[in-house]
């Protein structure tokens, strides 16, 4: 009886931990959102960039974009909300939009084209994955023998203490 209870408690603990882990996967998934104020060509139509776009996330201004400029925000979770104040042409009255976008789980960096979104196009037209252009050299960041403490054993290198522990 006691062992049954104990087994039940163990299984429940594991299940609860797995559920929490699953929730953390969804809640904590981080994305980097790139907001483009660039003219979009789609299906033979041209959706021109706004003269000025101001982006606010959680009440904080994160970017002020002119034509052909890109802003960046980070977001945790699967939904991203921002407020955009658009001045379409110079001298126009600014209009404010609240945009909520569901984010694909698989994408780390997501590019949202503002003119495309505001024109009400389909998601595939205005939402694209961000592709990093960064390049690295072969030996960059590779651990050296010192990093791995090879051949030194309890040598002098082991005795050094980092200043910030």
């Amino acid at each position: 009886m006691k062992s049954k209870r104990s087994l039940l408690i163990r299984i429940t603990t594991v299940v609860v931990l797995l559920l929490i882990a699953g929730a953390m996967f969804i809640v904590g998934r981080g994305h980097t959102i790139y907001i483009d104020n660039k003219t979009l060509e789609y299906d033979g139509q041209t959706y021109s960039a706004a003269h000025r776009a101001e982006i606010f996330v959680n009440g904080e201004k994160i970017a002020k974009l002119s034509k052909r400029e890109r802003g960046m925000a980070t977001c945790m979770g699967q939904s991203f909300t921002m407020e955009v104040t658009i001045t379409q042409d110079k001298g126009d009255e600014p209009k404010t939009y609240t945009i909520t976008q569901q984010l694909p789980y698989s994408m780390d960096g997501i590019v949202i084209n503002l003119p495309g979104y505001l024109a009400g196009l389909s998601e595939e037209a205005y939402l694209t994955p961000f592709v990093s252009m960064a390049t690295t050299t072969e030996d960059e960041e590779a651990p050296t023998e010192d990093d791995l403490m090879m051949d030194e054993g309890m040598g002098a290198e082991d005795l050094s203490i980092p200043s910030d522990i």
Partner: protein
Amino acid sequence: MSTKPINTKEKNPLQKATGFLRNNSVPVMFILICAVCIPISGFSPSYLLSEIVTRMGRNTFLILSLLIPIMAGMGLNFGMTLGAMAGEIALIFVSDWQIWGIPGVILAMIISIPFSVLLGLLCGKILNMAKGREMVTSYIISYFINGIYQLIVLYMMGSLIPIIHSSIKLPRGYGIRNTVSLLNMRQCIDNLLAINIGGVKIPMLTFIIIAGACLFIIWFRKTKLGQDMRAVGQDMQVARDAGINVERTRIISIVISTVLAGFGMILYLQNMGNISTYSSHSQIGMFCIAALLVGGASVDKASIGNVFLGVTLFHLMFIVAPQAGAKITGDSMIGEYFRVFVSYGVITVALVMYETKKRKAKSLLGAQLRLDQLKEEDEVK
């Protein structure tokens, strides 16, 4: 058989003071060192306080993980490095899966549990085969597991174990870079509920977590398992005769310590904001043990109070020693060497004192037995 103590005389205040100094020689020595070094270093009290609070939040949980094996009579668990490695592996995965902030920390803690449990089981089983030599054995185990850790992280991750992001992977396509950034979870626990008093940031959530760990240890001591551990720690043979499964109890104590060390390492690294993949864990056991000993703990006795006193004194010395060394000798490296000397020295002193005490107690017991035998012989005559 008579069990009267040999020395029944009341102690005078001088003897009491000498006894106190002998029992607390390490903390007293450190208080003196800090008292000398602080004015020389020239740091302001608010700076020192701020640094101490930060380091206390960063290190305390790790040091708390050492208490349970001491309670079970297994000495200072150098094998806590295994838990630190488990925590690092979990953080590498979480970083690759792009889970940020507090959810990332929680997920890393959950992922570290199975690794820590497995490593703790292995360590506990080996330590059961090396009873009486637990400390040196756990020290060598940490080197052995470090080799396996390097094999996994340097060759298996990215080739056998999927790692997606090139910011984590080495450019050759497999293996993990020297440094993994935890920028997206940096100080997320420390900053939540943090309060600022006179320019000193107090990471309340971190301290709440540490308080939780302290409460867990206090509660655990009172449980059946905790009592069993204390019994095993006092005398294994008596505990076995009382029906306690000594080997199992010892393994559980190491497993708990390893799991707590894994959590502690995650808290430590979220504060730092990056992982030095191949070296973060290598010295952590040594620092934590040194800090605990500085707090007045010994190989067979340690309390939560020792942890807090130890973190404060040890890190205070760490902060002021380089600057004081630079002021006195004109070379800050002297202070750095002093820190190294003190870290290893304090462990050596504690081990020597433990062995001396043990031998003294043994010889006292022998003398007591001899006296009892003589008394019995006199009575027979």
